[in-house]
Structures are given as structure tokens and as C-alpha cells.
């Protein structure tokens, strides 16, 4: 890698026999920018990290075990807590797994309602991600601006399902409530306002010189590495791998919709650096707007929930459902033994996958860069531990 601009190699070895010691820093679990309770044990030589070892488990709430005790319907509110920033996807994953086990046909309108809610949730999650990325780099204003737009989405979703964060919107067989009258126009007027704002965010912060210098060439992950470490979602696409469950293993009504899968191109530095991951999220918001416009335009009439027994007992068997969550390929492996309680449920999440590569990419970065790396992976602590 050639040394350009602000990049320098920092001499880490001291010549002349002066002995120096490494410093062990405990970053977290209470640290302003570890996005929840997440801990890193950082071995640093001054400001340069030799390694950062993630220490997870501070937010473990045994959600998978809870599923074995509360039954199929009863687990739905718990799925919200798997990833509270993008709860719709967890709802959807659980509902799809149960439906597949019981071979339930979901009404068309319910599928559209699900996609609309989920894509709004994706925008919401990405807004929080890009905003907090800017805040971690030290710019507070973009965070407030993105959270402002996020509030409008919260309002929309609140009108849809009564909750602003932990939605509990979907049900096995469909969704809990139909889209209320007049909601579609409000959603469209929001999109009308929001789409130009993405360009405004880019003008405000994305191409700011200091910001790009902080992000480009930092923690670059090659495509092969990203695949080896099992990165998913925007983290994988940031490395230039065009893989999106919505496109490659389509579910729900995604085959009927037309959208692009943005990937990182190394536009300002190395392919797969923090800036690429960041820009993928920015561009995905535009694609989500496109999907939402299509969904809102072709929303069919009909019921929003299939007939599902209150005492829901799917046939014995297992299934693995993959959905594209805001943090990537989310897997739900559910085993049923034919009773009213799931036998086992295993959730595979994007944030957990990203944790494994942090130790590798953080080597020889500055401490300030670790903050950028954490933010660029869009880690959500409860999703890591579940």
C-alpha cells in the first residue's frame, strides 16, 4: 500500500535498547462508543493498537432458551429484543420459520405489509448507523439530522403497529394490523422528503475531507477475507461481494420487486475500507426507498393474516430461514417436535459474524480507528449476544 496524503507508517519499534511496555486498555463495557455493552481488551503501544480482542456476553439474555418456554405465538415479542434497532426483521424471521414448519400460506397483502414495514425499518436502522458513525468520528450534527428523519419513520411505524422500537407487528400467518387509512399517502410524502435528504447527508458529511480521511484505507477487508470470516450484509457488500438474500435467495415478494444491490467499489481508497461499508448503507437507503415506492404502488387488497390456530402446533421437523436484515443475512434455525413449544431455536446474526474479524483488522490501527471500525460494522450489542 503506497503512502498517500495523511497516511504514515508509525515507527513502533524503539531503537537503542530503550524498553517500552504495552498498555492494556479495557474499552468498555461502559464506553461511549461501543454501541451498547461491548468490551474490547486493547493491547496498545501508545496510541497504536497491537490487537483488540472483543469480549462479548454482557448482553446475553438467553433469548433462544426463552423460545423453548413461551410457545410459538408467545415468542414474537421476544424476537423484537434480538435486535432492537431493526426489530421487524427478527419478527419476520420467526414468523417465516413457523410458517414454513406448519406450511402456512401467507396472504399477499400481508407479505406486502411485511416488506413495507421491514424496508422502513431498514432505512431507520441505516440512519442510526450512519449517524452514529459520524458521531463516533466526532461530528455531532449529522447524527441529530439522521435521528430527526428516523423520528418520522418511528411515527409512521407507530401508526402502523402502535410501537416505536420493539414493534411486535408480525404474527405467524401474517401481520397484526392492516395499514390504516391515509397511511399510504403519509408514507409516500415521507419518501418524497427523505430521498433528496440522502444527497444532503452526503453533502453534509460523507464527502467531508476530514471524514473521508478518517475512514478511507482504514480496516480494509478484501472480498476473499470477508467471505472467509463469514461477513454478511453491508459489511460483505462493502468488500465488493454482490450477495444479498433478497436477490440471491429471494423470499416473500422480493422477486416481484425491482431493486439494485449496491456494493463497495473502493472509490476513495482500498476496496472494503470503512468508507465503502459506510457508503453501502447510504446507497441501500435509496434502494429501500425504491422498494417502498413499488410496494406502496402495487399493494393488493385482501386479508392480512391467514387462519392460524391459537394452539399452534407445527409438524415435527426443522427449518432454516434466511432473511436480509439491516445487518445482513440473518438465519433462524428452528426445530419443532410437534408440540406447542419449539424444541430449539438458533439465531444467526450479522453483528456476531462481524465480531470475529475485528481482532484481525484492528492490528496496527490507532485507537481512534477502532471506534471507526466498530461503527462501520454497525454492531448492535444485543444482536451479538442474544
Amino acid at each position, binding site marked *: 500500500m503506497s503512502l498517500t496524503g495523511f497516511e*504514515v507508517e508509525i515507527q513502533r519499534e524503539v531503537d537503542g535498547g530503550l524498553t517500552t511496555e504495552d498498555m492494556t486498555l479495557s474499552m468498555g463495557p461502559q464506553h461511549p462508543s461501543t454501541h451498547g455493552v461491548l468490551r474490547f481488551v486493547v493491547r496498545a503501544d501508545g496510541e497504536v493498537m497491537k490487537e483488540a480482542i472483543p469480549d462479548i456476553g454482557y448482553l446475553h439474555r438467553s433469548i433462544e432458551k426463552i423460545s423453548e418456554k413461551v410457545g410459538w405465538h408467545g415468542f414474537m415479542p421476544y424476537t423484537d429484543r434480538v435486535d432492537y434497532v431493526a426489530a421487524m426483521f427478527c419478527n419476520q424471521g420467526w414468523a417465516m420459520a413457523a410458517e414454513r414448519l406448519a406450511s402456512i400460506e401467507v396472504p399477499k397483502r400481508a407479505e406486502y405489509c411485511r416488506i413495507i414495514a421491514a424496508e422502513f425499518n431498514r432505512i431507520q436502522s441505516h440512519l442510526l448507523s450512519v449517524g452514529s458513525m459520524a458521531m*463516533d468520528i466526532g*461530528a455531532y450534527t449529522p447524527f441529530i439530522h439522521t435521528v430527526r428523519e428516523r423520528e418520522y419513520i418511528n411515527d409512521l411505524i407507530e401508526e402502523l403497529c402502535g410501537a416505536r422500537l420493539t414493534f411486535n407487528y408480525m404474527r405467524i400467518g401474517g401481520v397484526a394490523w392492516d395499514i390504516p387509512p391515509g397511511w399510504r399517502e403519509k408514507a409516500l410524502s415521507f419518501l418524497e422528503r427523505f430521498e433528496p435528504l440522502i444527497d444532503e447527508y452526503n453533502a453534509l458529511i460523507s464527502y467531508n475531507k476530514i471524514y473521508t480521511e478518517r475512514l478511507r484505507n482504514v480496516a480494509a477487508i478484501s472480498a476473499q477475507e470477508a467471505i472467509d470470516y463469514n461477513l454478511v450484509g453491508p459489511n460483505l457488500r462493502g468488500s465488493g461481494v454482490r450477495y444479498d438474500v433478497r436477490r440471491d435467495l429471494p423470499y416473500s415478494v422480493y422477486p416481484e420487486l425491482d431493486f439494485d444491490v449496491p456494493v463497495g467499489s473502493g472509490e476513495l481508497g482500498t476496496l472494503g475500507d470503512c468508507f465503502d461499508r459506510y457508503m453501502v448503507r447510504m446507497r441501500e437507503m435509496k434502494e429501500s426507498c425504491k422498494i417502498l415506492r413499488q410496494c406502496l404502488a402495487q399493494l393488493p387488497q385482501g386479508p392480512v393474516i391467514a387462519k392460524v390456530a391459537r394452539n399452534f402446533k407445527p409438524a415435527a421437523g426443522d427449518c432454516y430461514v434466511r432473511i436480509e436484515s439491516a445487518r445482513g443475512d440473518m438465519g433462524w434455525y428452528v426445530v419443532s417436535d410437534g408440540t406447542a413449544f419449539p424444541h430449539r431455536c438458533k439465531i444467526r446474526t450479522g453483528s456476531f459474524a462481524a465480531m470475529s474479524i475485528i481482532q484481525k483488522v484492528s492490528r496496527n490501527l490507532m485507537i*481512534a480507528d477502532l471506534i471507526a471500525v466498530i461503527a462501520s460494522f454497525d454492531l448492535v450489542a444485543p444482536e451479538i449476544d442474544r
Partner: protein
Amino acid sequence: MQELVDSLVADGFVPGGLPLWVAYLGAMLVFGGIVVFVFILPIAGITTWVERRVAGRIQSRIGPNRTGPAGFLQWLADGIKSVLKEDIVPSAADVPLFKLAPYVVMTGFVAAFVVVPFGGPLIIADLNVGILYLTAVTALVVVGILMAGWASNNKWSLLGGIRSAAQIVSYEIPAGLSILPVVMLAGTLSMQGIIGHQGWAPWTWHVFDNPFTFFAFFILFVSALAEGNRTPFDLPEAESELVMGFATEYSGLRNLLFFMAEWGNLYVIGAVVTTLFLGGWQIPLALADHPVPRIVLQFAIFFAKAYFWVFVAVWLRWTLPRIRVDQMMIMCWKYLVPIAFVNFMGTAVWMVLFPAGVPAVRVLLSLTAAGLLVAFARRVVFHVRRALLTREELSFNPLSTARVMSRG
């Protein structure tokens, strides 16, 4: 100052038999106390309020508006709250150093006001080494910060302290090199002397004297921001990286002192650039004959000029991200120091070539600056207008925090 005490002694206000130096000392303490409590502390406090209101507007929210009109008394409420809070000293801290550090920072900051020329006669001491004294005492701040970082016995504090030491010591150099052209032009280090060399009109200011001083001005401002730990150079207390940097372990009054010094320093930055480059308190003599309105006018013009740069610093803080510690060093040593040196040499050459200065260049540079300001203002107005036009009643929930008021 001295004349005032002498006249008081002559008039018999000072008890007889008292040595003269006691009278001088007493007068100094009284006058210093007045300046500290009537001007410096309120200016630091009010700047926090200004910063929060400006930040609120920038971030499309309101900012503090509960305490007093437009939230003006918020700074008093916050100050009283901080004073009343428990002063926690970590058990593993180096207690004497830990307790002393905020006072060292505060001393460095308050001592700078000794040579700040608020108006024609309004200066505590017009030292003949004024600007040199100022750069020296403001460097005292770094000692306090380093003490705080070390004594806290906290690794984040230590990193903050080290960053601060590296940063302030490095940026002293471009700052010093940018002060030198002015000193050469004015031929004096005294603050009043430097102001006296300039006139009220923009084209007589040092900043427009020649192209080199024009750039020196910006380098001085950037370096001053770095010395004042302001964004984009707020690395020593980088909240998202070092929790709160050197101030992590501080609470209550001691924490307040650190932040008072930070916000008060903004005004010092403004005062320094105003004195050196922007004509200081100079007003057209024809405006006021009587000394009292003249002093008031001088004070007002100096305050307005200095506070404009406080506003710019606040604006920058809420606009820019923070640079990384290696980038901060590279920016100083690879860019600012060489450019500042070129400015210094360039000014010297310019003075030799054009001992009387070039009026055309002065006017041209003033017009350039005015043009830049107008273009910038037009852009701001354009964006504000556009934001107003696109504002809509978008929120559907009457309780939502995102409710946007409709126009009118």
C-alpha cells in the same frame, strides 16, 4: 493603572504610612478580581450558552430555553449545579496533583487576560513583551492538562493528557511563526503598540497588509483552535474515543474549571486574532470626542470582532468531525509549519521591497475578503430559505419529538 493609584495616594485615600507597594498590590488584586469576576467568568459562562443555542440551530433543535429569557440563565444554573456537586477524588489518584491541576489550567487562562486590550486605556498591563507573554502563559494550560491526565491514574486520562501535550506544544510553532510577521510589521511586541500600528479601516489592518499576512491570519486561527482543544482538534477530550480525556475522573467544581478555561479560551483566541490582525479596538476618531463614549465604542468594537471568531469556532465545532492524532501531527509539521515559515520570510521580503506597503494590494485583499464573506452569506441565506420552503407538517403524532412546526 499606576497613575490611578498614584492619584489616589495623592488625594489621601490610602492610609498614611502604608508602603506604596502595598497600595499597588491591593489595587492590582482589586482590579484583577473585578476583571475576573465581572468579565472573564461571565464571558466563559455566556459562551457556553451561546454555543448551545447555536448548536441547537445547526442541529435543527431549539437548545436550552427554560432558564430565563431564551434560556440565557442556563449557564448560571449549570455553574451552580457543578459547584454543588460532590468533588470526587479517585482513591488511586495522585491527590495533590489531581487537586492542583484545574487551578493551573485556570491560572494559565486567566493570566492571558492581563494583556488583552479591551479598549484604548482598558488594559490591565500593557507589557512591552505583550504577545510573547500571552503565548507563554497560555502554554501553562498544557502543564495543567498533563498533570490532570497523569494524576487521575486512568489510562484514558493519560492518553488525553499526552495527546494534549503533543498537540499544544506542536501548534505553538505555527502560531508563533504566524505572530512574527505582525511583530515585524508593527515593530513591537506590545499589544497596544500592535493595535496602534493599524487603523480603523479594513485596508489598514495587518491581515490585508500583504498576501503573506493574509495566510498567516488563517494559520494563526487554526493553530489557536488546536491550542484551545476545539473541534476539529478536540483530541485530548475526544468523547467518543477517550470517554472525556484528561477530565474523565473530574467532577463538580474542578470539572467546571476545566471547561470554563476551554470556553473562556475561545474569547482569548478571538481577542488575539483581533489584536494582531484585525485592527483591535480602532475606531474612526471622528466618531466620538468625549473619552467615555469613545472607550465604550472601542470596547464594543473590540468585543464584536473578538466574539465573531468565537462564533466561527462554535460553528466549526458543530460542523466538522475530529481528525486523528497522527493526521493532527502531520497537518502541523508538514503543512502549517512550512507555510507559516514561508509567510514569515515572505513578509520580511515584502517589507524590504515595499517599505511603505502597497495600498493597491491592501484594497484588493480587503475586497477579496469582503467578496468571500458576501458569497458565503448568500449561500447561507439560500440554504436557510430552502430549508424553510421544504418544511412541512410531516409528523403525524402530536406527542412526537420530531414534530415540525408549519410555516407562519
